[in-house]
């Protein structure tokens, strides 16, 4: 295959697909055992300094925030991050735990640009490689189907390509130019779901974003769930399971785990909290205050929820969208 163009962005995680196969063979436990644990234990056990980490979410939707907060609390550092996210990336950047960032989009849509991301990039502190949304998701897809790269027709001709680590090649079958995306294998992936059993079989309601692909592209996988359900419920509706247990290393019970984001059919996002947070994020001092108040000074997710308060949580539940 003839390579005719190369993006000059740095490739932060090599597509070691043979290594991934070996890992999956040797390290992924097929055993049907209980994996239920706290955020603290899950992060201690499965997140290391220097890991390449990714979170599955879209905007403020179904965001695994209780795990993100715990990572910040434990100060796991020099992380390399797949930045198809928002508050996950923002919190880690705010706490200065990120070394490199494969970015596609970090922004709050109607609420504006992230001041934390701006400071991190504009100071040149964090190394950034660009991708499109489809680009980064297809990179997960390549890893999930077990191939070192995937040819696509996106990103061609743009600076998004020029500042990525993709390549353009001539297709050996058609002679067309195609963009080759390297598989993205995560050291650790984190996904928040509606329901899971203690073994890790997980159900997502509504749209599934890139959970399917990311779960299968992760060496280690932490699942947090709004509700822990009996295994019988899983077996009754197996077609609803996006993530089967053998992909999963830790199951964390995290009601309101997406707060200040939302969880479709369960609770709305906390608009008030988000606006106040973004206001604080405008300055480095404010950012520190926010982290202190909402992360460091709360021992765990339970204390965090106590701080948010029942009244607010009930209000967010009432505002939820019906079917």
């Amino acid at each position, binding site marked *: 295959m003839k390579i005719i163009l190369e993006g000059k962005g740095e490739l932060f995680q090599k597509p070691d697909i043979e290594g991934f196969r070996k890992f999956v063979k040797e390290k992924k436990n097929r055993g049907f055992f209980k994996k239920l644990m706290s955020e603290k234990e899950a992060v201690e056990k499965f997140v290391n300094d220097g890991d390449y980490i990714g979170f599955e*979410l*879209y*905007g*403020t*939707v179904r965001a695994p925030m209780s795990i993100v907060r715990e990572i910040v609390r434990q100060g796991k550092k020099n992380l390399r991050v797949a*930045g198809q996210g928002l508050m996950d990336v923002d919190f880690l950047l705010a706490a200065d735990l990120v070394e490199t960032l494969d*970015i*596609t*989009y*970090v*922004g709050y*849509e*109607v609420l504006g*640009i*992230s001041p934390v*991301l*701006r400071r*991190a*990039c*504009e*100071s*040149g502190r964090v190394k*950034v490689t*660009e*991708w*499109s*949304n*489809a*680009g980064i*998701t*297809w990179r997960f*897809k390549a890893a999930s189907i077990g191939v070192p790269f995937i040819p*696509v*027709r*996106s*990103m*061609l*001709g*743009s*600076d*998004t390509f020029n*500042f990525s680590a993709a390549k*353009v090649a001539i297709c050996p079958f058609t002679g*067309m*130019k*195609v*963009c080759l995306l390297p598989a993205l294998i995560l050291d650790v992936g984190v996904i928040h779901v509606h329901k899971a059993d203690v073994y890790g079989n997980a159900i997502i309601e*509504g*749209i*599934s*974003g*890139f*959970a*399917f*692909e990311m779960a299968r592209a992760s060496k280690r996988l932490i699942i947090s769930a709004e509700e822990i359900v009996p295994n019988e419920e899983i077996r009754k509706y197996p077609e609803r399971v996006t993530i089967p247990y053998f992909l999963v290393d830790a199951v964390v019970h995290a009601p309101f785990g997406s707060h200040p984001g*939302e969880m*479709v059919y369960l609770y709305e*996002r906390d608009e008030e909290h988000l606006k106040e947070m973004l206001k604080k994020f405008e300055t480095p001092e404010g950012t520190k205050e926010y982290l202190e108040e909402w992360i460091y000074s709360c021992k765990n997710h339970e204390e965090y929820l106590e701080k948010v308060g029942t009244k607010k949580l009930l209000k967010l539940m009432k505002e939820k*969208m019906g*079917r």
Partner: protein
Amino acid sequence: MNYTKTELMICVASRLMEDYSTCFIGTGIPMLAAALAQKLHAPNLIPIFEFGGIGAILEKLPRAVGEGRTFYKALCATGICDIMETAQRGFIDYGFLGGAQIDPYGNLNTTCIGEHKKPKVRLPGSGGGNDVGSLCWRTIIIMKHEKKRFLPKVDFITTPGYLTGPGAREEAGLPEGTGPYRVVTDLAVLDFDEKTKRMRILSIHPGVKLEEVIENTGFELILPEKIEETEEPKEEELKILREEVDKEGYYIK
């Protein structure tokens, strides 16, 4: 004039959405336009949202491209790969985009102002923008008409328009027959000259002078022999827009 510029832009964008067409909808004005189209001339419009919502009934206006309202009473709740692959195999007719900067060929920047390594302003990034602009048949760009945004050259081509001119998209390997179709601004509607692929004025909004459009554009626009006036929002459009589409007042107040 009993309407705002935003309302006019929404109505113009809405009219571009045909019944039974597939539309890739981004945050903001495209959401309002799609909801309006569904209630008026395009009840069978198929709104598609990048994180997996297909065919939602837009009774309540989404505020983000992944939120529940993007698949409210939808036909399918799938994932981002399925949506992007649907675009890649040619099934999405229209894609709606915004940007911080645009050039004469419709190339868009949503990544950074200044040098990439240490930018003056870091913007959110491509998101699905690059994919929409690469893979949908026709891209419709909606943005504010200002000289600092309409530039001879953008700082960073996040999303490809016609790149450097005729044939450049195909030369880069992008799908044939795709590219920017319209630019809807608060002053005018623009299209792209078939020969040069450069931006051309199609119609100017009521009450706006040609000089105003030229002054607010940082490059030379192609002027057709006859410049039309954009059709004003109709009573019915405004009524539905205000009373039904954005009754919560998220976007229009």
